[in-house]
């Protein structure tokens, strides 16, 4: 075998081709130790006569142990492991994916609530909110005279040729409310109108978006955003494509979210692509569900 001769020096490219050339024989496994890193190279042929080169890297660690433990470390293997080589056998021992302990802290939840409540109580004294109907200290929609005074005022406004009331009805009344600071003092953004609800201004948009969002699962690893674009463009204009990818490898995790501008388009996409064979896998397409608020905060991001 040619590989034996080149055991300690790196085989040249030509030799490697030669190795691959002769069928049936495989180069013998190699083991090199460099510092505290051990590399084992093995060759294997699978059922389809394909050759594989398996490179495994081990970290060698030195640990101090009591005498009894050290003695036990040198025990010979027995039973079903009798013929296993030294070191962990991959058939029985593997390192599994990273898992993290998810910590639950009830204190955290309480704190969050406190923060939510605090600015609200501050606002109460300042009269930042003023009702458009009765000028009271509350939102217009919560006005107790909404049903009685409201329509009257609207009629009045219509008579005067103003359609402000209608306009405001069409849009969401709450965020459209302007800040009315009677005191004239500077109010930090966090205390201003709507500041108590985090990111509320973004919320209606998001929701409209979610309504036309579909979830595609069972994608193959090689899927790219452009593939999805190609696949879903025929159904309508797409506002956003999110393809979940592995942070390290950049490969797809097998699912994606696609937001359309129109809900009908999304519905047609579901009807059209669900069960569609794509890249040797059968796609599963459904409406994206908005996730309930997560209770557990993971230990690591």
């Amino acid at each position: 075998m040619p590989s034996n001769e080149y055991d300690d020096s790196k085989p040249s490219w030509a030799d490697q081709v030669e190795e691959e050339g002769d069928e049936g024989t495989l180069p013998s496994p190699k083991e090199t130790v460099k510092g505290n890193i051990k590399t084992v190279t093995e060759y294997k042929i699978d059922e389809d006569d394909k050759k594989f080169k398996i490179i495994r890297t081990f970290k060698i660690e030195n640990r101090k142990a009591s005498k009894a433990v050290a003695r036990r470390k040198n025990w010979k293997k027995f039973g079903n492991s009798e013929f296993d080589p030294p070191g962990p056998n991959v058939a029985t021992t593997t390192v599994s994916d990273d898992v993290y302990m998810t910590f639950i802290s009830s204190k955290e939840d309480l704190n969050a609530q406190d923060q939510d409540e605090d600015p609200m109580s501050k606002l109460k004294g300042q009269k930042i909110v003023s009702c458009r109907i009765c000028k009271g200290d509350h939102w217009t929609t919560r006005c107790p005279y909404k049903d009685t005074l409201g329509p009257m005022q609207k009629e009045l406004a219509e008579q005067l040729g103003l359609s402000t009331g209608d306009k405001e009805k069409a849009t969401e009344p709450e965020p459209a409310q302007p800040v009315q600071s009677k005191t004239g003092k500077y109010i930090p953004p966090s205390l201003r109108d709507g500041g108590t609800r985090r990111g509320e201004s973004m919320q209606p948009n998001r929701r409209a978006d979610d309504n036309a969002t579909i979830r595609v699962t069972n994608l193959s690893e090689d899927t790219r955003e452009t593939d999805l674009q190609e696949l879903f463009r025929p159904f309508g204009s797409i506002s956003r494509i999110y393809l979940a990818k592995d942070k390290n490898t950049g490969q797809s995790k097998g699912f994606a979210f696609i937001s359309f501008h129109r809900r009908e388009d999304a519905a047609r996409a579901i009807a059209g692509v669900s069960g569609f064979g794509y890249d040797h896998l059968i796609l599963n397409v459904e409406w994206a569900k908005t996730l309930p608020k997560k209770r557990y905060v993971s230990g690591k991001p």
Partner: protein
Amino acid sequence: MKPILLQGHERSLTQIKYNREGDLLFSVAKDQFANVWYSVNGERLGTYNGHSGAVWCVDVDWDTKNVLTGSADNSCRLWDCETGKQLAMLETNSAVRTCGFDFSGNIIMFSTDKQMGYQCYLNYFDLRDPQQIEDNQPYLSIPCSESKITSAVWGPLGEFVVAGHENGEINQFSAKSGEIVKKIKEHTKQINDIQTSVDLTMFITASKDCAAKMFDTTSLDHIKSFKTERPVNSAAISPNMEHVVMGGGQEAMEVTTTSTRIGKFEARFFHAAYEEEFGRVKGHFGPINCVAFHPDGKSYSSGGEDGYVRIHYFDPQYFDFELEA
């Protein structure tokens, strides 16, 4: 943390146990081979072959010389830990459910199931007397007529055995006279597992009634309760932190009809004093049947219905984490 996955069993795990130093991990499952692993890297040292039925329990003595296993093939076997050779076989009339070496490693106990018309017995053998082994005659055999023993551990100094029963009772059986020293009933359903703290002063029970409870070993005073919403299959006390780990999930027969997400197959960590849950570790595809802390408290292992044992070395966050009460 990256758990080490041990795939030595073909069926669901029934018990895992570390030896005193924690360098070896013993695992038994419903297949016929008891496995022993190096806990540091997950390398399998060997298997103890000989049983012809599910192995329910395993124990190792303090100096890691002998290993004891009890099986549903109606035998309790003693093995040489180093070579895997069978040293003795004690035949019984029904399946052996629990077994254990006492503190000295000289006296063993095991309990048999109430099965096929036979009663549940708690047997004591003295290994120093070869005649007892040869004749298969225990020096003490205690019949338990009411409810069978489902888990048992030795108390301190080898004076008694703490046994948990199918009806939720906990009894102390004296190793000398065989009488019941103390008796309590704090659980309403079967006690699946009992594990002691390192110094044997406390033990924790895991019960089908969805709770784990901590007791004083000698007085059997109830100290703490840890409540969950699923049956608890196993619980262990951390040797260096005030923590308790619990494994459970729904019953094995319902597993196929539920997804992993809602099955609650996580290992759950509770603070021992505040009785509050502070962390969870996912990983198993089925309920966790057994958990064990490494004697140094820096890692723990769990064995599941899925047939895998997972050794977890804790991240630094675990040691830094403090529960704010």
